[in-house]
């Protein structure tokens, strides 16, 4: 495990490749998560705020949500090939659901009294969403993002085991063939630590954004 992580590259097929695989996985998690966050928060706001959008999109989302992400793997490979794009797609799709559902709940739960107060103070109608509803939904949005980033790490492993030929997930699957359990454990620990760190990053951002509410 030690030589995999920190050894000289080239002495064995695995040695010294840890950093490269870790960077690959992190890049995919980050990319997929950003896509999921942008689409999830945007759609969540629209679903929570506009009745029509909710009626149109919510049933579709609720129907897609229970379908395991793994069942999308064949489609990802056909459409995007054995490349990063496949991983981005699978990760973004999986992380999208908790983000969109939480955002929509937060937006829909905006206290009516705050909207009244804003209207009474002279706000223009189209400013209610950005100035009142979204700030009010922020605690929910950050909960969704935290769930999303956790799921992104689960899915990057799935994607790399099945649809891409690099990254920590690929290493786990590949080293299993050689019964290198030490490397599998090393990869598992790496995912755990990285997941913890990325969650911590979101929590710190959240604590700053939500400083008015004494943190998450």
């Amino acid at each position, binding site marked *: 495990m030690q030589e995999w992580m920190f050894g000289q590259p080239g002495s064995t097929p695995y040695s010294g490749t840890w950093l490269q695989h870790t960077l690959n996985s992190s890049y995919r998690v980050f990319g997929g998560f950003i896509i999921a966050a942008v689409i999830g928060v945007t759609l969540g706001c629209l679903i929570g705020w506009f009745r029509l959008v909710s009626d149109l999109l919510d049933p579709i989302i609720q129907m897609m949500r229970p379908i395991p992400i793994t069942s999308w793997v064949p489609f990802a490979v056909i459409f995007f090939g054995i490349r990063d794009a496949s991983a981005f797609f699978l990760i973004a799709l999986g992380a999208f659901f908790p983000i969109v559902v939480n955002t929509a709940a937060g937006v829909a739960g905006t*206290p009516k*009294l*705050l909207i*009244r*107060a*804003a*209207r*009474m*103070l*002279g*706000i*223009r109608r189209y*400013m209610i969403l950005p*100035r*009142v509803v979204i*700030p*009010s939904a*922020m605690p929910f949005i950050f909960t969704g993002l935290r769930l999303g980033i956790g799921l992104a790490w689960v899915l990057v492993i799935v994607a790399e085991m099945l649809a891409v030929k690099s990254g920590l997930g690929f290493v786990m699957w590949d080293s299993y063939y050689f019964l290198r359990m030490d490397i599998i454990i090393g990869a598992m620990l790496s995912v755990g630590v990285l997941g913890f760190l990325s969650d911590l990053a979101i929590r710190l951002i959240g604590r700053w954004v*939500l*400083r*008015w*509410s*004494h943190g998450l």
Partner: protein
Amino acid sequence: MSRPAVASPMTEYKSPRIVIRGLRKHFTDIARQEEIVAIDGVDLDIGDDEFLTILGPSGCGKTTLLNIVAGFDQATSGVVTLDGEPIRKPGPDRGVVFQEYALFPWLSVEQNIEFGLRERGIPKAQRLERVRKQIASVGLSGFERRYPQELSGGMRQRVALGRVLANDPKILLMDEPFAALDAQTRTIMQQELLFVWSTERRTALFITHNIEEAILLGDRVVVMTARPGHIKEIVRVALPRPRDVTSAEFNQMRRKVAALLEDEVQATFATLQGALAT
């Protein structure tokens, strides 16, 4: 300058700002499948610079009345005008202070007070000037950067008052603003409200179920009946300000208003018991 030094207390207000005629409001109680008459024919004028208090038992439609004047609710029939213009929707010319404060928790004290000015597109420099003055006038200096969650109820209500005053509204609408405060804080807030009202001269509509508060603050006290709510009597409070709540005259007023209210409270209670029995 032309204003007489001491206006006769019985003078009718010459220029009503708010005119309410034949106001009715019905609700449909979906659970019970019945029509509820919340307000049943209210005619009322609120004069320029007048402080009008509305007193009534719970469920008499006094909050509904305020919500219609604020533009939050629509009347079933009747008209409400402000300076001759029919009221259709909420606007910054009618500042509302809610019992539950309704501050924006993610904004600091100064950002809350700046909110209306900012949303109405007032230039930044002018905004900051107004906010600074308003913070001082409602006694919030030193708390500019605090968030609502860090403030006591009394302080929060100061922010809510400062927030609407910054907009320079034509009328202040207050829906039991001090009901959630403890007795001491309430007394202080009443005094400060009167001070702000007398220095800035503003028309005010103040809803309460507290007899003493209604008499202490109001030029006139409108006593409402139990549901369906209409005006039982309008009592003019001829006592000079500042009013002493322990004086004999004040007590006399209190007794008079209490007698008017007593039947209505009983009626509300009876209705409630009836509803529970069925």
